[in-house]
Structures are given as structure tokens and as C-alpha cells.
């Protein structure tokens, strides 16, 4: 098992945001700033790591026909654990990400990866895959967050460096999210050739 390849795969070849196009809802909603995008990516990665490992561990005692409900219970449990931890120790992130923390449960990436990888590989490999895909997702979100923050608020990670008058408000609003992602995907497509 070439673990380095698995990680590279998650970041580039199977990048959830730009290639697989999974997890679009949080991608568009939580990238109003670089920090929000980064936090969401890391939160999702945390859940992905835990669920991948646990599902890989119980894959042999899970009857085939009931595997989806079992996976969902495991994923929902870890998301709730994450929710509690964030509410208790990181309230600012709780405020910034809001509804999208419990929505990690329905993030297609997590169930998708459980089905496609964790259910068929060893716990260690699943852990590494979780890291790879998680990093890919975080990278996508942070990149989108940076572009939207720079164009829309003239800042990067909160550090303002463009004066108010030159900010294009559109980019921190809903349409801006769609448009920015669209163009980023176009750029990625061009680079892939």
C-alpha cells in the first residue's frame, strides 16, 4: 500500500471540490472568508478520518444489506461529537459555520468515501485516505475562501489590505460563490490538459 500515493490521490486526482464535485453545499456556503473555508474543511476532515477508520474496522461484521443505515449512524454520531466539542471549546467557529456543522452528516464526501474506500480497505489505509481527501477538500475550500475574501472584502484571513471602495461585494454574497467556483473549475480544467 503506497500511502503517499493515497494522499496525493485525495489532493489532486480525486479532489472532492474540483474533480469529484462532491460536498458542494458547504463549499459554496462557508467560503465567505478564508478562515471560514479552512475551518469547515478541517471540521469535515476530522469527521472523515474518524468515520473512515471506524467503518473500516466494522466492515466485516456489518451485513451487506444494512450497511448504509449503519454507516449513517456512525457518521451522525461523529458529527454530533464534533458539534458538542465545537460548541464547548470553539464558539466563534460555531457562530461562523452555523447550520453547516450538523449538515456534515449529509456531506456526500463522507458517505461516498465510506462506501468507496473504507468498506473495502484496512483501517490504516482508510485513515490515510481520509487525510488525503480531507486535505483535498480543505484545500479547495480555503482556496475558494481566499479568492472570495480578497475580491469581496479586500482582506485575507482577516488582514485587510484593499480599501473599502475597491471591494466587489458580490463575491461574499450568494451569486459570487457560484461564479467564483465556476471560474476556478474552468482554470483547473485548463491546467489538467
Amino acid at each position: 500500500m503506497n500511502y503517499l500515493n493515497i494522499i496525493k490521490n485525495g489532493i489532486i486526482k480525486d479532489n472532492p471540490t474540483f474533480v469529484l464535485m462532491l460536498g458542494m453545499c458547504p463549499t459554496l456556503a462557508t467560503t465567505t472568508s478564508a478562515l471560514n473555508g479552512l475551518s469547515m474543511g478541517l471540521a469535515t476532515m476530522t469527521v472523515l478520518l474518524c468515520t473512515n477508520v471506524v467503518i473500516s474496522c466494522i466492515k466485516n461484521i456489518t451485513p451487506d444489506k444494512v450497511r448504509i443505515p449503519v454507516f449513517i449512524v456512525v457518521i451522525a454520531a461523529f458529527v454530533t461529537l464534533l458539534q458538542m466539542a465545537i460548541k464547548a471549546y470553539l464558539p466563534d467557529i460555531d457562530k461562523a459555520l452555523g447550520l453547516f456543522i450538523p449538515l456534515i452528516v449529509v456531506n456526500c464526501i463522507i458517505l461516498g468515501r465510506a462506501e468507496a474506500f473504507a468498506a473495502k480497505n484496512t483501517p490504516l489505509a482508510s485513515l490515510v485516505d481520509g487525510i488525503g481527501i480531507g486535505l483535498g477538500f480543505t484545500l479547495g475550500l480555503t482556496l475558494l475562501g481566499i479568492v472570495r475574501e480578497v475580491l469581496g472584502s479586500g482582506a485575507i484571513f482577516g488582514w485587510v489590505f484593499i480599501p473599502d471602495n475597491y471591494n466587489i461585494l458580490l463575491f461574499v454574497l450568494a451569486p459570487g460563490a457560484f461564479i467564483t467556483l465556476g471560474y476556478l473549475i474552468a482554470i483547473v480544467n485548463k491546467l489538467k490538459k
Partner: protein
Amino acid sequence: MEYILIFISAIFVNNIVLAQFLGICPFLGVSKKIGTSMGMSMAVAFVMVLATLVTWLVQTFVLVPANLEYLQTIVFILVIASLVQMVEIILKKLSPILYQALGIFLPLITTNCAVLGVAILVIQKEMNLGQSLVYAFSTAIGFGLALTVFAGIREQLELTNIPKGMRGMAIVLVTAGLLSLAFMGFSGVDVGLRKLMGIE
């Protein structure tokens, strides 16, 4: 009276897909043809209203009295998953054609963030049962509207010449952005309506 406000607001002003970013995956995935879009919207509408009803009842009469609010996420998603299973079975019997057309998208309603999102939102906004159901129904219509309008645009897009680099998801997303921009034109309508109706 207030219900009309919720209705208009959920469909136009705060459209679930174009403003709140819930339900993007099916929005981008199913909107290639107007027919499938409408079928999907109806399935989602049915699941959404039913799910909101059941989850609201469970939250109010089971989770809160028993101090088990932290089980909300697990319980809600299990309710939704079961409902989708039921809809699948019913649809298979009643309308095999629609069942075939929707294909893989039906089980995907489970992971439709809009359904879980609405279930959680009505609890967060502390709505009563009536308001929650109206909100769920209106949101589903808003979802259907966005989906169908977008499908119409995409069918037209198929016939146009798009630069190579923008083909595929890229142009779809930019188009969605423009549609979202158009819907922003509705903002403030609910404030005006409120004044008109004399509700504060």
C-alpha cells in the same frame, strides 16, 4: 396572514438553493432536463414536508422532554433515511416509469442537505407545527422552481457554442450564479409585504 409571508419569503427572497445553498448537489446533478427536474422536485417536496412533520413531532414530544436534544442529528437523519426508503417502495409500485427516470437520485434525497437543513432550521427558528409545515412546503416549491428554471436554461445551453475551457461544470456554475443574482432582485419584498399587511 403570516403564512403568506413565509410562503413568499421561502420561495423568492430566501430561495433554499440560490440563497441558502442547500440542495446544491441535486440542483447541479438533476437539472439537465425539465422533466426529470419536475419529478425530482415533487419527490423532494413529499419527503421534505413529511420529514419536517415527523422530526418536529419527535423533537417536541420525545427529544426535548427526555433531555435528549443532542441526539437530534442522529434521529433526524434516521427518520429521513427511513422516509426515503418508504417513498422508493411506494414509487416502485405506483409509478415504475417515474421510478426508472429518477434512478439513483431517489436514494440521494437522503443526502439532500435541503431536507435535513429544513428540519433543523424550523427547530432553530422556533416555529410551531403549522409554520414549520408551511415553511417546508414553500421551501420545496422554491427548490422546484429553482431546479425547473435552471433546467430550462441548461436545455438552452446545450444548443449554444461554449468555449472549451468553460464546458461542463464551469459554465453551469457561472449560470447558476447569474440565476442567484436574478433572485437577489426579490430581496426586500418581504419587508415591503410586511408593511403592506401591517404586520410587524
